[in-house]
């Protein structure tokens, strides 16, 4: 799910080389374009890696670790997770206007996704205070939520509400940051 196109690097290079100016003239919002581009690439990768990953797991454990029902019901949360991750990537990419080199932020985001999303160590192993802290970040909704549904576990309705809440917040942050960038942009004296 976190195998997305190099959105952060692309946006950083667009901003650095001022190629973004060509996009600003297009009749489509740059952020919307990047969201669609990122989602499209990520969904393709997700589909391929789902098959590949399942084959690997069945090779190791001797059985495919999901049912048709759990697979079907985890598709929407997985897409939502990809959406959240794409938005975070765009925010990091846009911040290169102020910070210039955001590669370390990109890797920090990846690490945070691994740690707070429960990829390295399951979140249930964390102490309660850390679990609460994780739930206040967007990362469990990127990885933990779809993974739990995929493996047949149950999640509360509050988890979905939190995911939707984060999506709205990140959407707002993305477009606000882009507008701020557009207002601050001065090129060739104009």
């Amino acid at each position, binding site marked *: 799910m976190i195998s997305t196109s190099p959105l952060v690097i692309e946006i950083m290079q667009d901003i650095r080389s001022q190629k973004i100016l060509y996009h600003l003239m297009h009749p489509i919002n740059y952020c919307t374009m990047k969201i669609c581009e990122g989602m499209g690439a990520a969904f393709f990768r997700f589909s391929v890696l789902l098959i590949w990953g399942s084959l690997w797991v069945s090779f190791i454990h001797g059985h495919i670790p999901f049912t048709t029902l759990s697979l079907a019901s985890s598709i929407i949360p997985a897409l939502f997770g990809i959406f959240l991750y794409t938005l975070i990537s765009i925010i990091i990419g846009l911040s290169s206007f102020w910070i210039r080199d955001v590669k370390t932020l990109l890797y*920090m985001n990846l690490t945070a996704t691994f740690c707070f999303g429960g990829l390295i160590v399951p979140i249930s192993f964390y102490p309660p205070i*850390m679990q609460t802290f994780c739930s206040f970040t967007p990362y469990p909704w990127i990885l933990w939520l779809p993974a739990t549904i995929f493996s047949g576990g149950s999640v509360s309705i509050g988890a979905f509400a939190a995911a939707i809440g984060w999506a709205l917040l990140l959407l707002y942050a993305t477009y606000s940051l882009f507008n701020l960038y557009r207002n601050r942009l001065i090129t060739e004296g104009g």
Partner: protein
Amino acid sequence: MFIKKALQTQVKLNVILKLSFLVKVLSIFLKQGLFLVTWSFFFYKYGEVDGWTFRELIAMYGIISFGVGTVEMFFYGVREIPMYVETNQIDNFLLQPRNVLLNIALSKGDVVAFSEIVYGLILMGLSGYMTKGYMLYFLLPLSPLFIFSLFLYLSSVSFYMQNSFGFVRELYQNANIVATQPASAYRGFFKVITLTVLPTAYISFFPIESLRLHAYKSLLISYAGALTFFLIACLFFYRGLRQYESSSTISYKY
């Protein structure tokens, strides 16, 4: 003289943007801290993984951080090879009467990576192995050598595949994941992979075994593996360089 000038330029380039510098340093500390905090929960629950405790994990992170920091500080150019290939910037290096690999490696440096070196040393100190014998000191030169080879090996893939910038980036991430897990847990097929295709065992498994068991044999295997890997990575790079073609496309440097 060339190396000195290249490094001086990199220091000036990195420090000139203060906010960027500060964010980078903070990100590095946060990134590494997060990994360790997460693993501490695991070891708190299970105690050890095949003889490896949290102490060994800290030592492993310390060694890898030290290596990554040293290479990124002085030879960040090796990580940029996919970008150079994609934007035809290799031409700029081929035209100069210097060693191509060294020239590319020194073309970029990341002064912020100094914090990663410091972090690595702190972790090695916390692991307790710094004061327990001198084995750890033997491992210090090994770490940058291996990490340099790893970056070169993975970056050279871009010579053989078109538009592989994203793919190589994913390879880095996956290599990082494989290298920073408790390597003692790898068995069978995965162990073969960490000894051959992605030989991270020479930076994680063998060095830590040499520390843990005070085994010189593991230390020798680490060095032999890292040196062989370095030679293979160089061969892979030069073979790939022969396939490089830019059709004399005009390129510009970022």
